[in-house]
Each structure stands twice: as C-alpha cells, then as structure tokens.
C-alpha cells in the first residue's frame, strides 16, 4: 500500500515536471520585441520599402536599422504620451550606440531560397499577398504571424505559371 502511494506521488511529480519544464520547450514561445512598433502608424506615413529598404533589390527585405529610423525620427514625433515612451527608446539606443535588437523569426530552412526582389520588384506582387494584413497591425507579433508552407507557395506558382522546378527554390 505504502509503495503504491509512493509510486503514485512519484508519477505525479514526474508528470508535473514534464508538463511545466519540458513541454514548453517544444512549443513556440512568443518572443519579446524591443518595442511596441505599429506597422499601421508607419504604413500611413511611409511605404513597406521605406523601412524594409532592400525589399526591391535583394533576396532579404531587411529589418530597419537605427539609422533608418533616425532618418525620419528627428526628435519625438508621436502625440500620445504612451507612444512617446516607445519612441524615446530610439534616443536611448542612439545614446548607447546600440542597434535595435529586433527579434526576427526563424528564417527559411537553409536549403530554401527566396528572393523578395523576384517577387516584389520583378513580378510586382503586392506585399499583402503573402504578408496579409501586417500593415494594419498595431504591435509587433511575438510569434510568426503566418505560416509559409511549400503547398501554399506552389498553389500560387501553378496559378501564375511560375517555375515549379524544385531547384528554383531548393538548393
């Protein structure tokens, strides 16, 4: 009897340990972003390539550097106090001579090759076709806001009669 109780408690402890400590490591945790960045507010003033400066020229679109931000943010521009609090972080980064520590989401698998230039500049596809309503968002997402699967890519490639050769994307 005592033995059974002991076993039960041991199993309960083990279960609790797995649930609290091990399981979370296998599910994606939201990542902390350095500031509450509003795509919406920026999109009203600028365009996508205003901040993602390489989107029309290179494979990677690029995340804005502090310098890119300071090009426009010359002093505090927000009106609301809570927005100013966020904007002040830029001043701090500048004083500390630090880059903005954006938390980018895991990139594509190392054998998958994608070119923003090919899609946005050459084929003139709207950003929202793949990035949905990110331009409407008020905060930076902590988890990937959408999932790009090969099936999803191929559906469009087939419809548009773009290349469906494996090596066009996998190398």
């Amino acid at each position, binding site marked *: 009897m005592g033995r059974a109780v002991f076993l039960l408690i041991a199993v309960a402890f083990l279960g609790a340990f797995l649930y609290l400590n091990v399981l979370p490591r296998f599910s994606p945790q939201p990542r902390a972003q350095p500031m509450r960045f509003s795509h919406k507010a920026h999109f009203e003033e600028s365009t996508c390539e205003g901040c993602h400066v390489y989107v029309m020229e290179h494979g990677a679109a690029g995340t804005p550097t502090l310098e890119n931000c300071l090009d426009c943010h010359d002093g505090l521009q927000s009106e609301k106090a809570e927005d100013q609090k966020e904007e002040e972080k830029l001043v701090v980064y500048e004083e500390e001579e630090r880059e903005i520590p954006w938390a980018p989401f895991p990139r594509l698998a190392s*054998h998958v090759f994608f*070119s923003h*230039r*090919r899609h946005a*500049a*050459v084929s003139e596809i709207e950003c929202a076709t793949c990035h949905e309503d990110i331009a409407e968002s008020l905060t930076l997402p902590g988890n990937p806001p959408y999932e790009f699967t090969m099936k999803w890519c191929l559906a469009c490639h087939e419809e548009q009669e773009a290349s469906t050769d494996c*090596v066009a994307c*996998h*190398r």
Partner: protein
Amino acid sequence: MPRYGMVIDLDRCTGCQACAVACKVENNVPFSSPELALEGRTIAWMQVLPFYEGEFPEARTRFMPALCNHCEIPPCVTICPTSATYLSEETGIVAQIYPRCIGCRYCAVACPYTVKFFNWFKPKWPEPMVAGLNPDVSVRPKSVIEKCTFCSHRVVKARERADGEKRKLKDGDYQTACQEVCPAKAITFGDLDDPESRVAALSKSPRAFRFGEDLGTEPKVYYLREGEWDVERER
C-alpha cells in the same frame, strides 16, 4: 524550354585547374586532403583528369575536365528511390535536392562517370573562409550526395535579371562558374536547343564527341577532340 549543355574544347584546355577551383568556391564544396583522396572521400564536382602518354623525352599529358554529364537518360535518376535527384523538365539539368536525399548512395554506384560524391563528414572551412561562402548555395549536411548542378542557382539569378529588364534570357546570360573563369575559353555553356547559341554550334562540330557515348546515357556535356578548328564557328 531550354536544354542546357556544355562543350569543353580539349584542344584549348591547358590543365590549369582554374575551373576546378572556381567550382569549389562557387558551390561551397569543402577542401580535401591527400589522406581523404587515398580513402576515395574527396568531393570534386569538377576535376581535371590527366592522361599520360609516351615515355620521356616523347612524353605528354592530356587533360580532360570531368563533371556530371547531365545525361538525358540518367541512370542515377532512374535508381534514386526518393526522387532526390531528378531531370529537370525546365532546364534539362540533373538536379540534386539535398533534404530529400537519404544517403543510400545508389546513384553514386549507378553513375557510370563516377561524378556523384557522398558527404562523409560535416564540411569544414578555415575560419576566414566561412564568411566567404556563397549565400546562394546551401552548405550540404553530412550524409547526402552532391554533384555538379551546372550552377543551377545562376539560372535563377539570370532569369530574375532578364525578367527585371523585361526581356528574354539570351545566350550568355547564364554562365557556369567554370566557364566564366576558364582563361583559355575552353568551356562553352548554353542552350543546346537554341539554334543561335554557340554551344549548339560547337556540339555539332566534327571534333565533338561525348564521354561513354555507347552507354546510351545521352550526355549533355560534349568534348572537342584535337584537330582542325572550324574558325568561323569557334571564334
């Protein structure tokens, strides 16, 4: 659809190995060592094979750059259980998709030209070279087969450029690394089905032959043997 192929003029080749080096750098192919070579574990998508003839003082060496022949009837593709290696309908390139490859090495055995290489180890480079790896090509993991891809990442780039300029891809837009670097201009590359292309003209030269033609693999790499140059066409 283009059908890319190559012509290598053995009469022009000086055996300088520039093509072999360019290929390694372009495609992130790891270095080898004499010890690995003895174990047959080198990786060399492009290698210049020497053939020795005669005795001193009448001795001479002939050179033959050897790479995947991108066969029209590729035995490596027929045998691959996972379609990791396949003949592209869009380009005629025999491609290799690394994440599909299970490393069974059937293809390496099936290839009569022995140009498929297995990754026995995780590749390593001297530290200063790591930053210089080609970002357009993946670094292959351990346990997959690799081989010449006719620099297929370059056709993607060339198409992107041509489409950006709103024009059709023309002969010479898409060059392989070995072709680009050859100081003797021994390597010509392009669409074999394009009647205007230099590669198509040279492949019909009376000097042209293919490696192991009797095997029925229909290689798309042609060699030009020594002989009278057809100067008009070979300019």
